[in-house]
């Protein structure tokens, strides 16, 4: 990657220049949690960033929770999202493959994706639920985002990871200089330190995730183990909704008060009982433990969701969201030790 240096006194100018006229989404601290929210560009006084991932994932803005899809495809507003983290990015690759490739392109996602600039930055801290390092990910972005930022003394390092990112740097990059060796080694040190911090956090919680998760899940474990694990699942679907890579949805049809047919695409959850049910009542995933295992299989067995590796980036959102206190890291451990 070609890293450039942006002096701290240039950062705001750069942010203003890049967001000019666009919808701006930034991380905002609300009652102790970071949330991605729309913000008036005029109110920005510093580089929008959070120490770790926000509660919302990027899909909230690209594959929105509910959308009218039965009519014309609307033209979306140009958007810039700041505050993407490394654990947000693998999911974007999954969504891109699903919605942009194959026999049918999903025009609503496609329109938003095309018009959204994604700016990611290294994590400087981690949450107890973070486990990126245990599933082959890092707490610093290395690809997929348009621009990647790292904090260094006196400013920020920036690199483009997409063609769009390259263009942005060309267009707005008058005040950049090439990163020095010293700055690059500072970046490396900081990156190693945060990686180490996530590892220590996992050790302190006594979480050891085995390397062969796919193999563990593929074994025909007695249903009893999964029955016990699934005992506290209330099928709320929160894990599905907060997951950056879960993409399942339903199409619902209704009549408006004017008698017009309205078709809406809404997020759906594979944890809910009727997700695979068909008319007449047949339902391959009728049992709750089967649905829970199914979700984990989709995340860890290639090529179910990801072509290779895992479709889980270790963001830990599902752990924080679960009111049944289900923690997929512990589930994997439990199944591995069964």
């Amino acid at each position, binding site marked *: 990657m070609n890293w450039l240096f942006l002096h701290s006194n240039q950062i705001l100018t750069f942010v203003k220049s890049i967001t000019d006229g666009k919808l701006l989404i930034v991380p905002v601290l609300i009652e102790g949690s970071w949330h991605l929210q729309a913000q008036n560009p005029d109110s920005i006084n510093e580089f929008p960033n959070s120490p770790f991932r926000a509660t919302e994932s990027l899909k909230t803005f690209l594959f929105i929770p509910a959308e009218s899809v039965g009519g014309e495809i609307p033209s979306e507003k140009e958007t810039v999202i700041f505050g993407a983290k490394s654990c947000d990015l693998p999911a974007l690759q999954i969504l891109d493959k699903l919605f942009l490739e194959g026999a*049918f*392109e*999903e025009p609503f996602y496609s329109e938003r994706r095309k018009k959204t600039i994604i700016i990611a930055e290294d994590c400087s801290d981690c949450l107890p639920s973070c486990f990126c390092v245990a599933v082959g990910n890092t707490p610093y972005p290395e690809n997929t985002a348009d621009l990647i930022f790292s904090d260094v003394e006196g400013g920020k390092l920036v690199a483009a990871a997409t063609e769009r990112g390259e263009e942005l740097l060309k267009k707005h990059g008058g005040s950049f200089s090439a990163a020095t060796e010293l700055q690059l080694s500072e970046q490396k040190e900081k990156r190693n330190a945060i990686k180490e911090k996530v590892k220590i956090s996992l050790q302190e919680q006594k979480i050891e995730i085995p390397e062969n998760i796919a193999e563990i899940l593929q074994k025909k474990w007695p249903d009893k183990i999964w029955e016990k694990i699934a005992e506290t699942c209330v099928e709320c679907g929160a894990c599905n909704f907060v997951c950056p890579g879960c*993409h399942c*949805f*339903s199409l619902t049809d209704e009549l408006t008060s004017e008698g017009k047919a309205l078709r809406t*695409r809404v997020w759906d959850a594979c944890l809910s009982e009727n*997700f695979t049910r*068909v008319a007449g009542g047949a339902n391959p995933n009728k049992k709750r433990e089967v649905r829970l295992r199914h979700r984990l299989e989709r995340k860890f067995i290639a090529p179910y969701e990801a072509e290779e590796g895992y479709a889980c980036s270790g963001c830990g959102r599902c752990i924080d969201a679960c009111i049944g206190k289900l923690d997929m890291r512990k589930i994997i451990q439990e199944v591995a030790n069964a």
Partner: protein
Amino acid sequence: MPENPYKSIPAKLLDVIEESGTIKTFVLKPERPILFEAGQFIEMAVPGVGEAPFTPSSSPAVSEKMDVTVMRVGKITEVLHDLSPGAMLGLRGPLGKPYPVDTEFKGKEILVIGGGVGLAPLRSLLYALLDRIDTYKKVVVRFGARSPQDIIYKDLMKKWTTNSPMDFVISVDADDTGKWKGPVGMVTTIMDDLPINISDAVAVVCGPPIMMKFATLKLLELGYADSRIYLSMEKNMSCGIGKCGHCRLGPYFVCEDGPVMTYDKIKNYEAIWD
């Protein structure tokens, strides 16, 4: 800008044919022709109520009209069954992969095993096979219905079982009329001694899941290769375009990689018959 794959093509309901107590055929005229191949499906919508996947039962060679045979079994089919000619419906498609009637099937002996309302999608396949009957060594059909009263397309069945280039036999699970002259028993009971050279044949199975399971087991017992058994995997195909996740089966989307899938592709996954 790509086309909107969620948008239905308006289709006028021209006729409703009563096939049995619970099954009706809807004859539709879409606003623009829908060209499909046998085995592909469509999403049929009652505007403002909902949509569901169906495989057309008419000939794929006819594009300006489409027959869809529907069993009254759930929310949308109940509304459909109450509709009268003139109603407007919506169609999306064609979706999914068809039977390889011009490729893998070519030059082969074709065995078609059907059950119940599975005859509806098979009818469009049989029309397609009849259209190119000279390209196959033979077509053998074994079909099972619950009772003589449950047999749909009665006139066509009479014709196809008595006077057609196909070797076509229908069995009923039980004869509640006292007039049935054909075999009585599950369809698997008329799968022995088939006039088929298995090493040169492909088999198609379509019907209720339990029937598909036992018919497939029977075919395997008879010596059919996994890769030559074509199954209609009807799962909850909601979006129909390989995105929504409801019809996932292992790494596949049944709506995109199927609904016609060979047994070798899916045999290692759980709950394929559920």
